[in-house]
């Protein structure tokens, strides 16, 4: 006698309080057995209406807000906002200011990718060891930030027209130490994970995105490059003098979670290379131009974007010649990268949904703002 086992759809909440959602983010997954048949994103638990708040504060007062959007890469967020204001008010930044900005944003990329790779390994089941190794190295970068800006996470270091303070004497030896320590660490991570049978079977072929799909879904950063589109704003639309530095754009070929992981790992090597060049050729001179505290840019609009660790971070500002921006809009990369989440998770298993979410590398502060 044969027996038929029937299954029926069941709603499973992944999050909001769950370590794999990297913050307070919720996927309402409809599962049939182990298979996800529908995934709905629920967000907004961290919404602070930053855009409204920023429209009531002066241009300079808004810089600390940008720290708190993507709290894992505050330097990049400061930079994107300052570039937008500089574009709006046509302010030039001195060469030393630009070089310091490049070093800081690349150090931030290292710190952020450490977190991304460590947490991603955690999501695939490499419990705690890789994330602890990554944190050990990230700590050294946070120490550099503390020495330079006084804060580890919310640095508030960039200013309109340059950076807040010049570098301290101990800055250079600390960065040189990071440059020495990172290549063995990256090799160690690669040896541990990229040849690992379990890691490969958990990530290869999971969350595959074609280049067309990635472009159509407005993805950016490692998500887009993992799918094989060589688009990096540091090359395509250089800011802060990135055109002076020599580096490559790593891309993936299959567009799966593993490719996104390996793109991030390779980007860290390129970042080290950029920091090396910027530090060796650090120009002397002023670190910042004088900008009036109550800045009133001329009427108009500006959209400036940078390649933040998570992708294209844009700031769209509209000025009405007032002391505060008339419109302050953030184009958050991890919010828009989520638009492909449904396509990547539906049809896979629940465990794969966690891996896919880890490979997007979301920061909920940036999604909800």
């Amino acid at each position: 006698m044969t027996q038929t086992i029937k299954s029926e759809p069941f709603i499973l909440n992944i999050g909001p309080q769950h370590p794999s959602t990297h913050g307070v983010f919720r996927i309402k997954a409809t599962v049939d057995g182990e298979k996800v048949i529908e995934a709905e994103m629920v967000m907004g638990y961290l919404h602070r209406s930053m855009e409204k708040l920023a429209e009531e504060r002066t241009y300079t007062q808004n810089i600390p807000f940008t720290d708190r959007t993507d709290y894992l890469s505050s330097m990049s967020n400061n930079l994107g906002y300052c570039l937008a204001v500089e574009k709006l008010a046509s302010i030039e930044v001195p060469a030393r200011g630009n070089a310091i900005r490049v070093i800081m944003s690349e150090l931030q990329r290292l710190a952020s990718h450490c977190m991304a790779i460590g947490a991603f390994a955690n999501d695939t089941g490499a419990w705690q060891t890789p994330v602890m190794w990554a944190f050990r190295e990230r700590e050294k970068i946070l120490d550099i930030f503390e020495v330079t800006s006084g804060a580890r996470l919310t640095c508030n270091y960039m200013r309109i027209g340059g950076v807040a303070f010049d570098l301290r004497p101990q800055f250079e030896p600390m960065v040189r130490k990071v440059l020495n320590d990172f290549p063995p660490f990256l090799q160690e991570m690669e040896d541990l994970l990229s040849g690992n049978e379990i890691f490969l079977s958990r990530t290869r072929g999971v969350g595959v995105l074609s280049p067309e799909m990635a472009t159509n879904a407005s993805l950016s950063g490692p998500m887009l490059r993992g799918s094989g589109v060589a688009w990096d704003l540091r090359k395509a639309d250089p800011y802060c003098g990135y055109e002076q530095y020599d580096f490559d754009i790593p891309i993936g070929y299959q567009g799966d979670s593993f490719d996104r992981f390996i793109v991030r790992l390779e980007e860290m090597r390129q970042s080290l290379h950029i920091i090396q060049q910027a530090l060796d050729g650090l120009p002397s001179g002023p670190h910042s131009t004088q900008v009036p505290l109550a800045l009133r840019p001329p009427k108009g609009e500006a959209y400036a974007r940078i390649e933040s660790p998570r992708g294209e971070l844009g700031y769209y500002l509209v000025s009405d010649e007032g002391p505060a921006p008339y419109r302050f809009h953030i184009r958050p990369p991890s919010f828009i990268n989520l638009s492909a989440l449904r396509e990547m998770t539906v049809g896979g298993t629940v465990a794969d949904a966690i891996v896919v979410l880890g490979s997007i590398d979301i920061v909920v502060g940036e999604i909800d703002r």
Partner: protein
Amino acid sequence: MTRELSGPEVAALAEAAVPGSVAKTTETACYLKPEHLVQTLEALKTSPEADLVHLTNLCGVDFWDHMEVVYHIQSFVQNHIALFKVETWDREKPEVPSVTPVFHGAWMQENETYDLYGIKFPGHPNLYRILLWEGYPGWPLRKDFLSMPGGLQPGLGEFAGVAPRQEPPVKVIE
């Protein structure tokens, strides 16, 4: 460097793709007619000359009397970026056609614009308040929504001579 196409350049591309689609042109932006929006963007996406394949940024702006939806669309191959705008003059029931059929990436950003501005996007497959909850009173990023009672602007208090922006011509939600 990514070339920022000027308004007339974008308008020429749009006119070539769909005649009569441009409402007006400024120095930086090209204003499209809402009824031709989807058709024009679809045509510009497939044309090799424009190649506007990547919808980078979509957001709303409130100008008291009318609202605008702003589209930044870029090309990877040509390495240029174009700025499109669509105006909506109805504050009670603002509507702009959804570009989700052309760009899947508009899904999230149109939801966000609906949530914070109340602009409806007919044609969007699942329009809901993505950050706030259903039933939240008002649309927070509109200029007539006051973040503090009495229209206090906390950060601007210490700057003498900062007059309140404009008398709200519409009913204020507190």
